[in-house]
């Protein structure tokens, strides 16, 4: 059994000094971040595209198996732009165009025109091209 560690005595580390621990933490994060970026760029199979906000699906502009490029329009949602002005909430109806943030293929479409969605609902599933970060 060991006594309670004294933080001021530097016993709260397995490294020689605090400085070594700082370097180790930065190296660890560097490795973890690089691994995540590599995984997301080259190994991730599919990405779920969720609705950006609450709204109603007006139009689906693509079909399953469609090839899309970054910036291509995928769907149009009817949303309400909410803004607090002078202590009152103003709501203005507007259309929100959902665009693709990457190159890839539409694997499946999970909603239909007329569906009411929120930011937790998946609109469609995309298979990204390798070499880009979703």
């Amino acid at each position, binding site marked *: 059994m060991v006594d*309670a560690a004294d933080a001021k005595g530097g016993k709260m580390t397995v490294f020689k000094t605090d400085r070594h621990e700082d370097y180790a933490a930065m190296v660890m994060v560097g490795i973890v971040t690089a691994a995540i970026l590599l995984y997301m760029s080259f190994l991730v199979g599919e990405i779920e595209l969720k609705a950006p906000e609450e709204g109603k699906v007006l139009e689906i502009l693509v079909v399953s198996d469609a090839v899309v490029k970054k910036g291509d329009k995928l769907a149009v949602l009817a949303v309400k732009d909410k803004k607090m002005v002078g202590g009152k909430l103003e709501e203005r109806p507007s259309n929100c165009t959902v665009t693709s943030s990457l190159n890839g293929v539409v694997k499946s479409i999970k909603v239909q025109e007329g569906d009411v969605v929120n930011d937790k609902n998946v609109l469609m599933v995309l298979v990204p091209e390798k070499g880009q970060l979703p």
Partner: protein
Amino acid sequence: MVQKLPRILPGLLFMVVSVILLRLYVELWIKNQMVFGVKGWLARELNLNYIMLSIILGMVYRNVVFRGKIPAWAEEGFRTTRLFIKGGIIMLGCLYTVMSLAKVGSWAILLILTFIFGTVLFVMWVGKLWNVDRSVVGIMGAACGVCGVSACIATAPGVKAKATDVAMAIATILGFGLLTMFISPFIGKALGLSDLQYGAWVGTGILNSGQVLATCLAFNPTIAKGTAVYYGKLWNLMRVISIPFVVFIITAWYYGKEAKEEQGEQKQSLGKILKEKFPLFVLGFMGMTILSTLGLFGSDKSETNHILCEIMQWIFAIGLIGQGAYIDFREIKQAGGMPLKIGLAAGVTKYLLALVIIKLFAPADYDV
């Protein structure tokens, strides 16, 4: 270090398995509980998230399961705790971008920075007045000046704070934040504060980030531009991004005074302090923020950013279990209530002063 690996692994695996069970089962169970008719009330109102649960579990291990002492087979593994906490702080930087500060507004930035560094100086003054241990002053200065738990944990290694003092500091911040979280909406409505004024006030005056958002939603449940939660988030963002600078100033103060006491009147040069003592991992936080600003991790709603955030939480949780395991209840009793007294003094002063200044000088609204 490599030779230590066989001794480190048992304790480390113990912490990792604990985090897996905690996050996949306990945290999920708590989020799904209905209390007072609200799902997730425990997580949101009592801050029973992975941070608190990890610390509590660590304390249970130390004081109940291990009966006051970490066993020899786990000791080396538990000593990796600060590595993971530092790693978590570094990864926290990926959630923020410098450009998001542009939404805050120059007058707001000036006000926030004044309160941050003003609070740090106030805590140092109170600490000198009450003859408080410098490590406690350091972590309370960061905790009260910036955003509570993260700032306290980021500063702790640089000022050689004891785990017990860190635990007391966190308890003070969260306790004070809980109280102000409940009373603030009533005060805001009674004084006729606008959403901007309320968001700015609690974004400055409440010590913990999560509680800022919760109280903004209590004031006005709508999430939209120009609402309390919109402004509360922005003002809180500015506080979090200032963590590296606050840690720098507090570390320089701590070692400057230490050198003065050890070597008489001979001054320790700032350059020497920076070279030998500055917690470098905080620069890692800044580095991640810069990379995020450059778009390396995609947008803030991208899948990549979401994964980075998840991994950050896991790394933090492993570190916080170890942090909790260094908290001995007997030491807490001996420590007394100094962090509590400082926290209350700084917290109440900041809370009231922020209210007065914002009520008098902040506009009721501005175009977002």
